[in-house]
């Protein structure tokens, strides 16, 4: 066991994130809204059966193209909000699949599976919550912010991105949160710098941290929270083929409650993990102390 893992096993700040309340459904649903928002496109789906099941932190998985599409793998995208029978997602056109999604028009139909994954756990009683979103990851925090406020928690939010056009959901978070800070790498909006600038200032008041965004940001936020003994929950964005737990492509090294590290599926054991349970430094490697690494011929140094 590495010193890191030993440390986590001794004083874990988070437990295993509980499963969602409802199983997913697969439906062909209508796109009822398409709204370009700077670098992204916000899609609104008329999907009542998914909306009524969804909890903050969960995601949906879209089939791309029709029945003969050459792009076979589902695109998994975090749910921003799920109210009144409508599911809202924010799509970044990063490749041909997500670009196809952004080209949908009202009246088009899409095949979608959801809600998938484990939701953000509730905040500890009375805790002030700090929400940190990177790029379009901020969209995944809008529904959470609303739920936390409804549960009586004070909410602070930080939204960061490379530039102003890559910020997301700032207005929605401003409408809900008590305090909102914005950072951009190039200073084109808010303060120039990484989200950690604002996070470091707001952390002392926080009783729990929730984050969604790129892995380096999640790592920085989780490390900062853990260093202060504050529980954090991160929603990871791992490459997934199916979104439902059968393809085994989206695994991350996650420290379990028994202190052992396993390759855990981001789709069904995540996407929300305790920030102190993700071995960020070991992502993309096969550490010798992962359960079953010995069978792969990887031995203790």
């Amino acid at each position, binding site marked *: 066991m590495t010193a890191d893992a030993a440390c986590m096993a001794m004083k874990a700040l988070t437990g295993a994130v509980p499963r969602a309340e409802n*199983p*997913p*459904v*697969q439906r062909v649903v209508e796109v009822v809204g398409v709204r370009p928002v700077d670098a992204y496109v916000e899609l609104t789906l008329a999907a009542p059966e998914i909306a009524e099941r969804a909890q903050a932190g969960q995601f949906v998985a879209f*089939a791309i193209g029709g*029945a003969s599409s*050459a*792009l*076979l*793998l*589902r695109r998994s995208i975090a749910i921003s909000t799920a109210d009144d029978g409508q599911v809202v997602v924010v799509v970044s056109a990063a490749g041909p*699949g997500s670009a196809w999604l952004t080209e949908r028009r009202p009246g088009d139909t899409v*095949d979608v*599976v959801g809600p998938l994954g484990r939701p953000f756990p509730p905040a500890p009683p009375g805790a002030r919550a700090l929400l940190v979103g990177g790029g379009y990851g901020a969209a995944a925090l809008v529904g959470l912010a609303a739920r936390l406020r409804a549960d009586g928690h004070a909410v602070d939010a930080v939204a960061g991105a490379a530039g102003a056009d890559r910020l997301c959901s700032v207005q929605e978070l401003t409408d809900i949160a008590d305090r909102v800070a914005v950072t951009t790498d190039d200073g084109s909006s808010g303060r120039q710098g990484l989200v950690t600038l604002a996070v470091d200032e707001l952390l002392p008041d926080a009783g729990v941290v929730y984050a969604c965004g790129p892995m380096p940001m999640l790592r920085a936020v989780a490390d900062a929270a853990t260093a202060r003994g504050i529980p954090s929950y991160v929603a990871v964005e*791992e*490459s997934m*083929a*199916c979104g*439902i*737990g*059968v*393809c*085994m*492509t*989206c*695994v*991350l090294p996650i420290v379990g409650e028994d202190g052992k590290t*396993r*390759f855990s599926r981001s789709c*069904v054991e995540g996407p929300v993990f305790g920030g102190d349970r993700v071995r960020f430094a070991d*992502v*993309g*490697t*096969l550490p010798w102390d*992962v*359960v*079953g*690494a*010995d*069978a*792969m*011929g*990887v031995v203790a140094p």
Partner: protein
Amino acid sequence: MTATTRTFGTESPASRGTFGTESPSVDMSTSLGAVPIPSPVLTASGCSAFGRELEPFVDLTAIGAVVTKSVQLRPRSGRPTPRMAETPSGMLNSIGLQGPGIDGLLADDLPWLAERGARAFVSIAGTRVEDFAELATRLRGVPGVLGLEVNISCPNVESRGEVFACDPVAASDVVAAVRAAADPAQPVYAKLSPDVTDIVSVARAVTDAGADGLSMINTLLGLVIDPDTMKPVLGGVTGGLSGPAIRPVALRCVWQVHQALPEVPILGMGGIRSGLDALQFVLAGASAVSVGTAVFNDPSAVARVHDELAAALHQRGFASVTDAVGYAHR
């Protein structure tokens, strides 16, 4: 694809009276070895885990069987990420047989399937002949275990030398050991690799060694390089290519082997996405099919392919799926 109604010999399908005009009532029952199954459409090993995740989307008791992800003696972490790259009409994977090991399977996954009445066709894998034999022994008489698929062809192993299916002698050693150790009531299917010069010789060798049937095909070994990093995309460097991109290769393998060994049952797989895809495999000689990568695209694909295949058989005048097996050779 045309939908020509065909008749066979002197007996016209309509005169059999086995189906109505409204809903097709093609007899979809078939068998794996000597074991009957109610549907010719199964999951594919490595593409539906141990079946549990499909429960919201598919009636697991109605499909032919859940073909499990390959199990080994010990728990296995699998390879580091990235494990997947999307390719035209397919994907490359290098999972590396991540799994709970036989103890986990026996304690957890197989009882779960058995409680629901779902049939399990358990895929077994190992690095030594004795590993395979021990796995077969452990699975004797286990409730719900319909049979064994012997994965001698996974490309995501530490050494290509471990791909038993590339060598007829090594392949038959494994199959003979499994057949000798396995429950006599459990059919043993050997899963073959298309990455060989002559798949018929491997097929002949493993059936001579006692295989009750053949699963064809496993993935093809492939590679994708990221033009930005200028390095291989996958953590495992190479990976297995699957999906509709490999369907013609798979179909050719089924065709060749059925032609050479018409009495040997074939479980066909490789890029099946629709009922018409499945029909091609049946016509080429498969008595059952597995739907693999298509499940990633459509979690209800196994049930959908069953329905589409039944409709396609009906449209072509077949009263049963078994009537259509190998029809393209006639």
